[in-house]
């Protein structure tokens, strides 16, 4: 009878010991997990990637501005800038082991008479490795563009109204353009007014006195230029 009682006591101690082992194990496991996720500098990594991504896009913008505003456009400007950026990144972040590769890079200016749309565009695909954080093969693409679709309504032989739909790479209309952003046949547009449009949401109506065909140049706030000609 006495022996049986003692065995019950041992069972309680064993149960409590097991509970204690569980507490210690779960505690250690949770501590490891929390320390890893809370104190591993994820934000630093994502900001570093964000910096490279954002400024690679900016470089496309810069190259497109240079290309579209030059009297003699240099088609190699994007490739040259990307090569410099690739080299300089290793100097800017020496301990990160950053390697940025690019492919399918290109600049273009085009006019499609069928859709009456002009397009200035820069594109590139990137692959980013950051050895210090074990990141390899992070891919991202960047496209920067400005498009212009124009239509001309003539009231008489010299008086015309040009309707211009200006859109960025997002497909959204570019707001806040004024007469300083437009030039018609090498002359500053005299009157430019924004209007709501059911198809394009926002269009600019330009009053133009002169002869046709009209060559319309537009600069957005980033400085990207696009040119369209309409009879």
């Amino acid at each position: 009878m006495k022996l049986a009682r003692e065995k019950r006591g041992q069972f309680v101690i064993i149960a409590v010991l097991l509970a204690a082992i569980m507490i210690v194990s779960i505690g250690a496991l949770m501590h490891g997990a929390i320390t890893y996720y809370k104190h591993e500098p994820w934000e630093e990594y994502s900001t570093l990637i964000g910096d490279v991504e954002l400024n690679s896009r900016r470089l496309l913008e810069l190259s497109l501005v240079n290309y579209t505003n030059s009297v003699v456009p240099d088609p190699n400007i994007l490739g040259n800038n990307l090569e410099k950026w690739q080299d300089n990144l290793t100097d800017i972040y020496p301990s990160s082991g950053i390697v940025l590769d690019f492919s399918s890079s290109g600049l273009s200016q085009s006019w499609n008479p069928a859709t009456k749309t002009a397009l200035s565009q820069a594109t590139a695909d990137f692959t980013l490795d950051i050895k210090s954080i074990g990141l390899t093969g992070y891919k991202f693409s960047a496209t920067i563009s400005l498009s212009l679709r124009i239509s001309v309504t003539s009231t008489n032989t010299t008086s015309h109204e040009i309707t211009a739909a200006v859109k960025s790479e997002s497909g959204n209309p570019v707001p806040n353009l004024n007469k300083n952003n437009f030039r018609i046949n090498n002359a500053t547009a005299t009157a430019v007014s924004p209007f709501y449009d059911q198809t394009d949401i926002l269009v600019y109506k330009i009053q133009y006195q002169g002869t046709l065909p009209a060559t319309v140049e537009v600069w957005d706030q980033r400085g990207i230029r696009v040119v369209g000609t309409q009879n």
Partner: protein
Amino acid sequence: MRNLKNTKGQMRVIETIFAIFIIVAALYFVGIFAVSPTSPGYEVTDLEKMGYSALHDLDQQGLLASLVYNGNWSDLRTVLKITIPVDVYFNLTIYNLSGSKLNGDTQIIYGDSATFSNAKNIASVSYSLVGIPKQNPNTGKYEAKYDPRILVLQITRG
């Protein structure tokens, strides 16, 4: 008979005390693992996160490049002061690729410079910019050159 009952009760009490001791010991052992979040190692990491986030947010909003390339150092100090918490001091220096300091004698600083020499935990983050298109006031044409800037932000708590 009465004596036997008393002994049985004592054993239960001893068992319970022993069990409580084991549980408390286990909890204490788990507590040893816990590291205070204000320890120096984590403090610097937190400051680095804050610095990177501040610069990246300003860059995404399109403010950083325009202030840096136009040399608006006082406006740059103001936007950083707004973005970074009040109890965090900062010192921003801007360099070009050849390593020349571009903000010259103008310090983009919040807090006493002695704070940085005396502080125990200082975080330093670097951030890069590629350039910004500028409109030539004479010709009206936009000019865009690849001209990187390296921003070095030192931050510490006051």
